[in-house]
């Protein structure tokens, strides 16, 4: 009888953590990044045959060894940060906008169109104002379409915004051929190379300074918007519980549409900075996958704009560092995607240990 009653308890079970001190949470994240670094080092070692320390040194050198490299790193960082800032209010509202790629592209497309069609017709200051307005409006419209259907019919926004990316890409492909220069090259080439009409001004002789300033301003804006504005408060409530939002008199549909307009408009600005500020051309790869990476940046930072500076630095560092490794050791540039992927897997996985705890079952008391 006694034997039969022995309860087969599992060795451990998983429970939600009630709360975790912030330093513990960041400790876990730091550990996961360390683990990722070690793992990435091993992968790089296997592929290059170098010792891991040399590989890390190469990465750091690739990011910081010259002023130009530091600026390149900054540019990678701020553009990623810009798109991340754009998607954040939508995510905080629990609206899965994975259409940032398309929204950035359409913003860039509008910028390029202004530069090409108004380049010799408008005075430079007016042209830039028109570019700003058009790029923001274009990005906003691209985000508005899924938002309206989400608000009215509860159409799945993840899939809708995803599809909108490819409609956007094809639209850009179309205009790339329309604007081909020289004809038949399949590229737009540098727009207004001679007149430099519509090129955003360079500040302090630094090509990337403008992006850095604009994005920093946007970061501060977004931080304040989410934390201290009534809009930010409303979208947080909508994200947490639509019922509560309705209960306290929030117009949920209005908030969804307003937030997506903002999200799209900031994507438009990213497109403006890329096309008008640094690239001076447009192609289907102008957004360069930032629309997708931004989702991870924003999510890893818990939708906090200040933390996002750190997470985008992390991803920018690995992108530039891995790209340096591939140059030095003659590997393909895709190497950096593999490294980014590995880093992401580790950080994504580490969230589990922050939200859950594994409880080991204590041995049951002996029944006497």
């Amino acid at each position, binding site marked *: *009888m006694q034997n*039969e*009653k022995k*309860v*087969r308890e599992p060795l451990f079970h998983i429970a939600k953590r*009630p*709360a975790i001190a912030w330093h513990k949470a960041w400790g876990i994240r730091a550990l996961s990044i360390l683990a990722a670094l070690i793992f990435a080092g091993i992968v790089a070692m296997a592929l290059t045959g170098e010792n891991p320390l040399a590989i890390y040194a190469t990465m750091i050198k690739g990011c910081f060894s010259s002023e130009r490299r530091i600026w390149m790193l900054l540019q990678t960082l701020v553009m990623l940060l810009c798109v991340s800032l754009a998607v954040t209010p939508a995510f905080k509202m629990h609206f899965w906008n994975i259409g940032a790629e398309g929204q950035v592209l359409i913003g860039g497309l509008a910028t390029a169109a202004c530069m090409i069609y108004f380049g010799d017709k408008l005075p430079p200051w007016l042209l830039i104002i028109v570019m700003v307005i058009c790029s923001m409006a274009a990005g906003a419209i691209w985000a508005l379409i899924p938002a309206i259907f989400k608000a009215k019919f509860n159409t799945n926004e993840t899939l809708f915004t995803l599809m909108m990316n490819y409609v956007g890409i094809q639209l850009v492909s179309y205009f790339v051929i329309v604007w081909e220069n020289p004809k038949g090259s399949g590229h737009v080439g540098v727009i207004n190379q001679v007149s430099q009409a519509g090129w955003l001004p360079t500040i302090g002789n630094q090509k990337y300074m403008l992006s850095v300033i604009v994005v920093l301003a946007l970061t501060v804006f977004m931080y304040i918007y989410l934390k*201290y*504005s*009534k*809009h*930010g*408060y409303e979208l*947080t*409530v909508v994200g*947490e*519980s639509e*019922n*509560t939002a309705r*209960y*306290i*008199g929030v117009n949920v549909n209005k908030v969804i549409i307003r937030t997506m307009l903002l999200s799209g408009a900031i994507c438009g600005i990213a497109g403006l900075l890329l096309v008008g500020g640094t690239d001076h051309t447009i192609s289907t790869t102008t957004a360069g996958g930032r629309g997708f990476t931004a989702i991870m940046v924003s999510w890893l930072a818990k939708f906090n704009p200040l933390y996002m500076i750190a997470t985008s630095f992390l991803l920018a560092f690995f992108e530039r560092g891995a790209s340096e490794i591939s140059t030095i050791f003659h590997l393909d540039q895709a190497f950096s995607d593999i490294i980014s992927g590995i880093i992401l897997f580790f950080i994504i996985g580490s969230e589990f240990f922050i939200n859950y705890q594994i409880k080991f079952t204590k041995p049951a008391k002996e029944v006497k």
Partner: protein
Amino acid sequence: MSKPYALELKGITKVFGSIVANKDVDMSVKRGEILAILGENGSGKTTLMNMVSGIYFPDEGKIFVDGKEVVIRSPKDAFDYKIGMIHQHFKLVDVFTATENIVLGINDGEKFNIKEAQKKVKEITDRYGFQIDLNKKIYEMSVSEKQTVEIIKVLYRGADILILDEPTAVLTPQETQKLFVVLRNMRADNKTVVIITHKLHEVLAISDRVSIMRKGKYIDTVITAEATEQSLTEAMVGEKVSLNIERKEPENLQERLVIKDLSVTAHDGKQLLKDVCFTAYGGEILGIAGISGSGQKELLESVAGLQRADKGASIIYFDPEGNEVQLVGKTPKAIRNLGIALSFVPEDRLGMGLVGNMDIIDNMMLRSYKKGKTEFLDRKQPRALAEEIIESLEVVTPSATTPVRRLSGGNVQKVLVGREISLNPRVLMVAYPVRGLDINSSYMIYNLISKQKDQGVSIIFVGEDLDVLIELCDRIMVINSGEITGIVDGKSAKKEELGLLMTKSTHEIEGDEEVAEDAK
């Protein structure tokens, strides 16, 4: 005693944290018998049966099936002993048909054939007299049909012992009658049926024996034929317990809310409230007693403007100048601005009143954040309020910036009630404000409410504990299946009287009144 009991429990105890849900409970039921488990809300009936069906594991005590001791650790174990439970919340897949739901999860090793399975299911429905279209999808079904699917599901798995948790709570009287026919057929088929309920007339109509529970303890088991509504009520509510809640005499009562002909009909046509009429006065606590789900929520929500009342209803509010304001048709916001506060503590605590992931300060702002002309939030006042509530109500929290989700249930309730009171309402509606609280916190809430009454606020208090209602409230209104069955004076109210008003079927009460009138 030659034949062992089909199911027997001995000395079952279960503790959740500091709350003793079941203490030393014994119970037994035979084959071919219907046993009712009777008790008020929170008396531990469901917890007890959850231990039989494998949801919980008892801390102490033994379970016997057919005289043999068994260990039940999971619903699967329960099924191995042919025990099946039909819970209040159905576990069904919406886009599947009835048959698909019934066979779900069964792996009998035979080739899967939905037509063959359906034939087997059909045998069961014919045997016990279920009326259901097995090819209908769940999302097209009424609540009663869904319940039928759940019952068939349990039978299809070969259960001999069926436990039904408040099966009639969601049914109309006609549907209840059909269910009882089925249950009697099962009894005739030598199955064991345990039905958890708090409706006296149903206990009398369907069961062979009744086991009564009160506050987690087993009280008695009686043979139904020898019981009366009076005797069962007395056993269920027990002796009156004195609580020493301070109650001042209400002073200069003024009409604050006059409600007339308030009816609410749900989308599926079920009558949730029927011709409710009453008046609430400033400076008085009006208690509302009733079995949970009798229409309390709908009543409060109708006043708050969250529930659409049927045509013809009238809710008149008297503002400080004595003007009459019709609340029916006003938005929740407009009603709130008139000073009518609703503090509803829903089952999951973090329902519509609070946002779990936001901190205490931000939750303070939930109703007031729109104040001020700028586009920015003003956190100064909410912060001060949060700190005040934390201090005065002794909310246990690391800081005012801790997400509400991380507080314990009692502290969440303090935050919620504290916020509502802070708005200086003229009408304060509170529902179950002490659910899950320890004694000290409960008294703190009672004192808060009494203080509001002294300040001339009209208070509507929905409660569960009759002792509290009797000591705290000036008048107690009893609601039963959406109808008001009586309003009694708090000072002279008897528990048995309230218990009867709460549980008797409304038609019987009407009948009684007629008899009383005839006697005159």
